[in-house]
């Protein structure tokens, strides 16, 4: 049986449709909730978020994977209401965006405890919401190298992925040798891991995307739209053409079956200003037209946005 956990319950992978595989309803660093400068009323949150999701749905979007980890403002009850009212399937994450976003309780926890926590969120539910996680988020802390805590989280994620069949999504693919060592030690097939952010402006040069693909990992070009051409680009922005060329070059090397693409946008950021004008709908409004203009056929586009994510997200056990 093909099965994917969404916040409203399991759905068949055949129903996912076009998937935005690395997005955020709203992301904030832990502690940002204490700083009123970022607060919005619930009315404002829905007003900023619902039109984006509705448009995503109207343009043909099927599923929105929320890559917001524990402690980053992940709010499954809110996601459930958004999903129910807009018709967009929402997949929520367990895990952490990086060790530096794991609060002390989890930073002090053992690998075994972290694995049990992730497994609980995947098989029983997140908190009291009843919604189950459909993906495990892990990542590299600021600084460019995996910290000991990052490695504990990767190891726990690998164990939870093996126990539940749910895949892993990474924030950053730098220092991939260490990540892959952990996954190999735990016996996790690397096609259960999406190595994300290989395309971002800060880290693309340091990311061994081809090597990771050769090891069998999936590759996420998932910061599309964070462009230096924007009015107020973030520090991880990159020239639009440079990113697109990188993506096309990578596909041209024979990796079409391993790539996924997304925009990593916030519908309504929780603890940072966000980037004006950048939404999940960049996928439809800019990226897919760019890919067509570059000569990709509809079958290749379907592979990237429908087939690859369906295979990746399907619970394998």
């Amino acid at each position: 049986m093909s099965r994917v956990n969404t916040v409203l319950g399991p759905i068949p992978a055949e129903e996912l449709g076009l998937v935005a595989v690395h997005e955020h309803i709203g992301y904030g660093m832990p502690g940002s909730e204490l700083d009123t400068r970022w607060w919005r009323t619930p009315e404002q949150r829905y007003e900023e978020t619902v039109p984006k999701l509705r448009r995503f749905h109207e343009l043909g979007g099927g599923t929105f994977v929320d890559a917001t980890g524990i402690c980053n403002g992940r709010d499954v009850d809110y996601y459930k209401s958004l999903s129910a009212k807009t018709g967009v399937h929402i997949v929520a994450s367990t895990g952490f965006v990086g060790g530096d976003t794991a609060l002390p309780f989890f930073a002090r926890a053992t690998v075994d405890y972290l694995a049990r926590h992730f497994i609980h969120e995947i098989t029983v539910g997140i908190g009291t919401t009843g919604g189950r996680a459909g993906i495990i988020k892990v990542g590299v802390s600021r600084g460019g190298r995996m910290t000991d805590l990052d490695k504990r989280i990767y190891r726990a994620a690998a164990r939870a992925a093996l126990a539940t069949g749910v895949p892993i999504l990474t924030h950053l693919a730098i220092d991939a040798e260490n990540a892959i060592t952990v996954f190999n030690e735990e016996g996790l097939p690397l096609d259960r891991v999406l190595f994300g952010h290989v395309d971002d402006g800060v880290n693309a040069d340091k990311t061994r995307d081809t090597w990771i693909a050769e090891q069998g990992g999936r590759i996420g070009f998932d910061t599309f739209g964070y462009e230096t051409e924007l009015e107020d680009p973030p520090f991880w922005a990159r020239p639009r053409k440079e990113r697109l060329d990188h993506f096309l070059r990578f596909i041209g090397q024979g990796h079409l079956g391993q790539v996924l693409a997304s925009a990593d946008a916030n519908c309504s950021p929780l603890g940072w200003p966000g980037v004006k004008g950048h939404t999940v709908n960049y996928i439809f409004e800019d990226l897919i037209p760019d890919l067509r203009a570059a000569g990709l056929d509809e079958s290749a586009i379907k592979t990237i946005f429908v087939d690859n994510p369906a295979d990746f997200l399907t619970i394998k056990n």
Partner: protein
Amino acid sequence: MSAKSNTVNTVLGPVPADELGIVSVHEALLSVVPGAEHAFDISMDRAEIFETLAAKLADFRAKGGRTIVDSTGMFHGRDVRLYEALSRSADVHIVASTGMGPEELLGGYFLTPQTNPPTPWPAEKFADLFTKEVTEGMVVPRVERRGAAGLVATTASRDGMTPTDESLFRGAARTALHTGVPVSIRFGDDAVHDLGIVLEEKLPADRVIVGGLDRSDSVAAGAPLEIARLGAYVALDHVGLEDDDHVTDKERAALVAELVKAGHGDRILLSSNAIGAAKGRPDHDLPYSYVLSDFVPLLTAQGLSDEDVQRILVDNPRDLLTVR
């Protein structure tokens, strides 16, 4: 707030300082290790937490206590609405705190912000965050502000103050200067040094309470007397705890007598750092009334007068907590 008003910020609003009665200055009501609220195996049943805390406050009230200070800061389980309900129900004044620390207990927002490079927060930003918790009210995260914080509490890392700890200490001191509430510091590995950081900000020493001075290392170093000489309040605040890190109650009582004899009776504070309801860490399940029921007799045995005891339990905390 004007100096003449002589009030203390409680969760139910300002209270005349003379109404505080017997105060326990360093306690924890709900104590949640940051992140534990998300843990799959930890229950956050508010009704159950309320019942546990209400019973402990009722016992404290019955033994003569009137005011509890929750000195855990703004990011360790503080629940302002719960404390308001508890205060009404148990008829005990509750003073809640702003502040954070040590560095290890902070969220990533303060340590690795989304800037390039990810520079940790400086003192001025902490001062602004904490000050607003007094002048505009304590936050219920992403929902609302409520009553004013009654003190600003921070802690240094046990192995020694880190640069971010120092920013927290300076930010806390500036908050006290801006608002008139006192500062509570728990020192890292050197009480005199850590007090010195807040004094460098020109905060008068009598606006500072130094916690943890019944740790064996600080007693061995003579820190309690030195802190009192500098004019700050000396908190022997693990009364009832006898472990490898702390002196015994008998030794605490002798230390109190020594401080009184040296003329520092107006600088002593007693508390237990009891935890009413702990989440994500072991309980320290000691009654809030322990100082009153079990420790005061040891003081009397040391020859302290009723006036001395009254000064330590009532007058000193009143003077400290009164908004200047």
